[in-house]
């Protein structure tokens, strides 16, 4: 037993030295008595180490860094807004409504069908924000995000047909955010149900594992209003998201076939993002229906 423990230590020391740049031979020289047993293990470890030096794709790193920085900025802006909380959200909505009223009903209606390369597109996005702000329930907002995802897919298809990869990328990012919001809002419902059903915890869960399970961001929960028919709303949301989960990637793949070469990489990323986003959203909705956390 002691011998085995000693060998474990020797092996580990040699591994550290190998990882630090020394050669296998240098390690073996330090432990000639164990050399026969050590050598094949060190060669295997070195092979495993070399096979593990995988580099993430450059384009993935760029995309991931962009998303991380966006999340960081969003967190910062939420922090700034937290002082005002609800009032701020409503104040923003009222301001936007006033601007939209000034623009006139016709402008708003026309903006509803505008595309990302058109002048009225910002009005369309502002109108969507107002609708989201004025939707009190989490499930209602989740449904709205699903319908907005549908609009984004139409826009991606349109921009792809016009051969504009930047705008395809930009709208795909929005689509990704919408789908992430659906998952977050479903999770918020789950948390709410847990809080309502569960007795107060007697003992805090030990270890960092418990801390890793981050609660849903406070602003989303704080805005939540009681659901009149939560089970019915959840079922509607699931049906809607399931339909789009099948339909949207299919539509984008169909667009890919006839799209100009210049937009194909951006389109493929959009397809992957939509598939992954819908999978996450559906998983979150299903977990909510079964009232279980993602790690249950």
């Amino acid at each position: 037993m002691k011998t085995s423990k000693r060998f474990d230590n020797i092996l580990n020391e040699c591994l550290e030295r190998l990882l630090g740049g020394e050669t296998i031979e240098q390690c073996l020289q330090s432990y000639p008595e164990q050399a026969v047993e050590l050598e094949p293990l060190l060669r295997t470890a070195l092979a495993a180490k070399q096979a593990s030096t995988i580099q993430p794709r450059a384009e993935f790193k760029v995309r991931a860094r962009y998303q991380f920085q966006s999340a960081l900025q969003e967190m910062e802006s939420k922090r700034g807004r937290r002082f005002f909380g609800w009032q701020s959200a409503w104040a923003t909505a009222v301001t936007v409504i006033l601007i939209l009223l000034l623009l006139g009903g016709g402008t708003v209606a026309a903006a509803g069908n505008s595309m990302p390369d058109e002048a009225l597109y910002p009005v369309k996005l502002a109108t969507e924000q107002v609708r989201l702000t004025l939707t009190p329930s989490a499930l209602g907002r989740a449904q709205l995000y699903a319908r907005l995802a549908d609009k984004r897919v139409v826009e991606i298809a349109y921009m792809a047909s016009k051969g504009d990869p930047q705008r395809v990328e930009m709208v795909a990012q929005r689509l990704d955010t919408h789908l992430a919001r659906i998952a977050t809002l479903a999770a918020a419902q789950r948390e709410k149900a847990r809080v309502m059903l569960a007795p107060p915890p007697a003992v805090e869960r030990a270890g960092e594992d418990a801390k890793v399970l981050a609660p849903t961001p406070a602003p989303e929960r704080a805005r939540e209003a009681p659901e009149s028919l939560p089970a019915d709303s959840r079922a509607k949301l699931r049906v809607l998201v399931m339909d789009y989960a099948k339909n949207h990637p299919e539509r984008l793949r169909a667009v890919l076939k006839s799209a100009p070469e210049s937009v194909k990489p951006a389109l493929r990323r959009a397809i992957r993002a939509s598939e992954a986003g819908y999978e996450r959203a559906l998983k979150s909705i299903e977990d909510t229906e079964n009232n279980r956390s993602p790690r249950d």
Partner: protein
Amino acid sequence: MQDEESLMRRAQRRDPEAFTQLYEAYFDKIYRYITIRIGNEMEAEDMTQQVFLKALRSIPSFRWRGISPSAWLFRIAHNQVVDYLRRKAKRVTVPIDKLPPSVSDDNPQLMAEQRQDIEQIALASQQLTQAQREVISLRFAGELSVAEVSKVMGRSQGAVKALQHSAIVALRRVLSVTEP
């Protein structure tokens, strides 16, 4: 990297620069660890992003109890992997060799070789126990020390060393069988 404890404290105070430093220092390692654990690059990409977004959300609850940022991040990644494997067990997935080639890869030959390496190590590691696979991924892909691995896995350093030994022995056995 600067003193890890002060970096974490700055990150907890929502210092974007500190967050970015953590991200840049661990992104590749976390990606490698997840890829080796699950053997699927596309899923690994998605999960790597999720690890950092989750870290961003949960950093206020981080408590400095001798757990380094790397151990903390890898524990989040570990939880993601466990969750993924649990879900995967319930559904059919696309094996790595059936995946479409990555888009806009500058060096297709290098990518193909890399894919082969991932496939080989992922296939070989499937013959190991979960704990052995974990220790190999954390040590070689995540580049964690034994002390850090022991924090992530919640085992003593002696136990990690023993596990590392048995994992390499098992890996050697599997690789020597599969080699032509």
